[in-house]
């Protein structure tokens, strides 16, 4: 059987994902590129006895790299480990999309042009003559409307055709540049697989990634030649070359596209929407409304579903424990129920919320609103040194840190991703609310609302400080500029939306799930060892750990072993703190026994500690999944230290003021 390996390349928003989905259907695997969190999508399709493996690359505008995604796409295309590239082009935005195609032609790889979104081009009144483009560029051109699966079979057949002739493409870059290219070609490094002319062009453009490939003595020579040229004409080569390419494209488009000017329907509709959505006075209210809606969907729609899942897990637990208690020793039953089943429970409990979140994100992205929201919020977020898109993860963090962190995938640079992820856990999540409610109602009756609001505010304040500080210490020189396309709106294509949500949820299960399970198991072990001890009592390992830790916590005003143990359990999930306190105090009246253990002041510092200290095990797992162990570990240490400092400061300051 014939095997083919192809790659999909194209601009962002060119409908590449639709083409990928239409080609490969459900045979997709989503993973990460080695060492980074950029998504790698691979799928296969089978036609006429030929098995084709398709790799989808992150969207790029040119072969000059910029963000991490773009570097990955560039490196993959340059490495050339594939038989054919399908360049997906937004037919309604031909010129800019062709720029990448031209560069790939210069790179000399086999390719097919896929003019996608033909329906939108027609709506815009563009009549594109496929054959003309094909004749001029000497490459096959296929027209598709991928989200209606139009033209996909033609594309498949074109992909497996074997009698394709090697294109010989070149743009004439004026006499002087050509003669410089000639002399550069002679310096071509022997071990370099790239075509000489392509490399020479990139070197003249001055892209440091490519100039580094040259031998040092040649490098100097090139600098000199290029310098002389630029001095002589007072022009920059980089600009001249880009201008030449666009001039070529302009000519190509003029030859092959006829424009009926009376139709600009799609653009007009988008413009009309934007006139409202990005209106000076309405933009922010609309944005906040969309955020509120997302929040509502994730937690109001996902919440009951999560409750349902939680109940299901509980009943399974009860069912299993009654069945097993007659068959197995008590410790084994506890292991199965409190260890394994609780572990599974705490993983799947997130799924409903996450699934809804991913649906919401996919809709926002697919419809084109995501980049608008970044546009609206960028000024504000830029103040924190972050990108406009960072706002959504932070807002989601108020519901739950996990979706907040997962939503950071939409950020482009690593700096934005890392800083936002590190800050999200400081947004007080819903699981912390039960702790506040309990303590505030017991110790600050009548002022509970103000106290809880103050806690949320403290979280935001710490987040601002943390964001600023991390920028300063870890990412000194990277200020990422905002150069962002605002794509035309369109109705989300539901199969894409659902596929997005499904694959992301599956990835969460696979990656974070294992770690969450492990965390739960460790806590279970600590609570039930040594053998025979009462679960989580003072004599269990966790009880002893709590007693050992309590002196450390007494400067913060809550030096009891019960408080320490409940905080340890809180690592599982913050709301567990409340349940654990209930169990440990063995109290008919929790309020009364809390008053014995805490003063209003120490209750305050305990709430502050709960707000800040170690994100729950699921959050840690997701941080690791997204940006690696080191940051996850750092986050644990940082938040613990910060929480302790804030709690101690609050308690000591309070004692000092009142005493």
């Amino acid at each position: 059987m014939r095997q083919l390996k192809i790659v999909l390349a194209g601009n962002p928003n060119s409908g590449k994902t639709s083409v990928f989905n239409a080609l490969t259907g459900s045979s997709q695997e989503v993973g990460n590129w080695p060492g980074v969190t950029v998504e790698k999508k691979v799928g296969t399709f089978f036609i006429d006895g030929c098995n084709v493996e398709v790799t989808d690359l992150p969207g790029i505008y040119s072969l000059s790299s910029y963000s991490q995604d773009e570097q990955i796409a560039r490196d993959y295309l340059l490495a050339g480990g594939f038989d054919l590239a399908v360049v997906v082009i937004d037919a309604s935005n031909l010129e800019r999309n062709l720029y990448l195609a031209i560069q790939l032609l210069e790179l000399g790889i086999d390719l097919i042009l896929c003019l996608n979104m033909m329906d939108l081009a027609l709506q815009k009144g563009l009549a594109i003559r496929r054959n003309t483009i094909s004749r001029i560029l000497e490459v096959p051109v296929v027209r598709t409307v991928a989200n209606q699966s139009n033209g996909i079979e033609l594309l498949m057949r074109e992909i497996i055709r074997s009698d394709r002739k090697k294109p010989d493409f070149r743009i004439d870059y004026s006499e002087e540049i050509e003669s410089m290219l000639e002399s550069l070609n002679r310096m071509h490094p022997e071990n370099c697989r790239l075509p000489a002319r392509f490399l020479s062009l990139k070197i003249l453009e001055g892209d440091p990634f490519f100039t580094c490939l040259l031998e040092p003595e040649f490098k100097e020579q090139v600098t000199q030649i290029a310098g002389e040229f630029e001095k002589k004409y007072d022009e920059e080569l980089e600009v001249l070359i880009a201008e030449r390419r666009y001039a070529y494209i302009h000519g190509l488009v003029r030859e092959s596209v006829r424009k009926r000017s009376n139709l600009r329907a799609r653009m007009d509709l988008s413009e009309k929407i934007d006139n409202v959505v990005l209106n000076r006075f309405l933009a922010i209210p609309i944005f906040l409304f969309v955020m509120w809606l997302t929040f509502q969907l994730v937690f109001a729609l996902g919440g009951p579903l999560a409750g349902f899942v939680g109940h299901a897990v509980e009943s399974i637990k009860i069912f299993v424990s009654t069945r097993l208690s007659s068959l197995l020793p008590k410790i084994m039953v506890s292991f199965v129920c409190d260890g394994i089943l609780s572990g599974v429970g705490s993983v799947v409990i997130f799924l409903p919320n996450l699934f809804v979140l991913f649906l919401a994100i996919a809709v926002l992205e697919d419809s084109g609103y995501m980049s608008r929201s970044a546009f609206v919020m960028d000024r504000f977020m830029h103040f924190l040194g972050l990108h406009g898109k960072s706002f959504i993860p932070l807002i989601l963090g108020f519901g739950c840190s996990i979706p907040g962190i997962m939503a950071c995938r939409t950020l482009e640079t690593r700096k934005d991703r890392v800083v936002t992820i590190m800050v999200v856990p400081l947004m007080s999540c819903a699981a912390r609310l039960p702790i506040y409610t309990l303590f505030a109602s017991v110790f600050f009756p009548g002022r509970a609302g103000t106290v809880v609001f103050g806690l949320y505010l403290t979280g935001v304040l710490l987040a601002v400080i943390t964001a600023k500080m991390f920028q300063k210490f870890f990412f000194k020189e990277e200020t990422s500029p905002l150069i962002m396309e605002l794509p035309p709106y369109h109705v989300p294509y539901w199969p894409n939306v659902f596929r997005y949500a499904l694959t992301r949820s599956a990835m969460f299960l696979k990656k974070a799930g294992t770690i969450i399970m492990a965390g739960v198991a460790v806590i279970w072990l600590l609570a039930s060892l040594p053998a025979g001890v009462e679960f989580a009592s003072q004599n269990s390992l966790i009880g002893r750990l709590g007693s050992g830790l309590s002196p450390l916590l007494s400067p913060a005003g809550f030096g009891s072993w019960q408080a320490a143990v409940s905080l340890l359990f809180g690592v599982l999930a913050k709301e567990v703190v409340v349940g654990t306190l209930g169990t440990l105090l063995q109290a008919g009246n929790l309020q009364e026994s809390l008053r014995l253990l805490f003063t209003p002041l120490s209750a305050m510092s305990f709430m502050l500690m709960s707000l800040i200290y170690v994100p729950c095990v699921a959050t840690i797992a997701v941080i690791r999944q997204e940006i690696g162990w080191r940051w996850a570990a750092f986050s644990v240490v940082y938040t613990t230290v910060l929480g302790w400092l804030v709690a101690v400061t609050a308690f000591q300051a309070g004692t000092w003021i009142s005493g």
Partner: protein
Amino acid sequence: MKGLSSSQEDYLEAILMLAGEGGVTRVSELSRMLEVTPASAAVAVKNLSRAGLVKHESYGYVELTSGGEKLARQLYDRHRIMSSFFQKVLGLDKSLADIEACAIEHSLHQETFEKVVKFFEFMETCKEVEPQFLVNFKEFLDAGGRAGKSCRIDKKSSPVKNLVRLSDLSPGERALVIRLETCGEVRRKLLALGLIRGETIELIRKAPLGDPLEFRIKDYCLSLRKNEADRIFVSREKS
């Protein structure tokens, strides 16, 4: 500046450069930098200290007093400005320009110096269109000093009217892209996105908080921060 010899001025500048802001240096470092013997450096420092410009204890650190620092900074600015004047206007290379600046800076009258500064400021502010005479002068030099060949007119040196920053446009206004004054990755990306000379670009709107800006170029909408748009020069289209 009266009373200070040119070598004393050199010492002040050197201390400023070595010590940086509010910092300290040593006599030995000074002697190395100015290529004099440690002994003569020590004498010079002692004289400066007597004039109240530096603080120095024997074998200790040398430190500028606030008066000394002010004076040193003036001298240093003067040096820098003279040096860039030589480089940018006369086209000398950096090392020669520095040597000449050193030689000339001590002997200029305040008034002459101020005029040079003013001239230079003028050059900088009208940098959008490089003065034609300067372009001609460069060519004149390139052509080996032969007059007559210096009248090449190209798109860039031909006067472009209404040259403004992209961020200066008001919503709804259209302009032609003339020049990008960005560098590195940003520039590569902007070029790839089609911001090339002669392309029409229109400011659609500003974001509600004033930044970023939304533009239409080719067939799509692009948003840029003011910061980036500030470095893109355009020529307003006649309405």
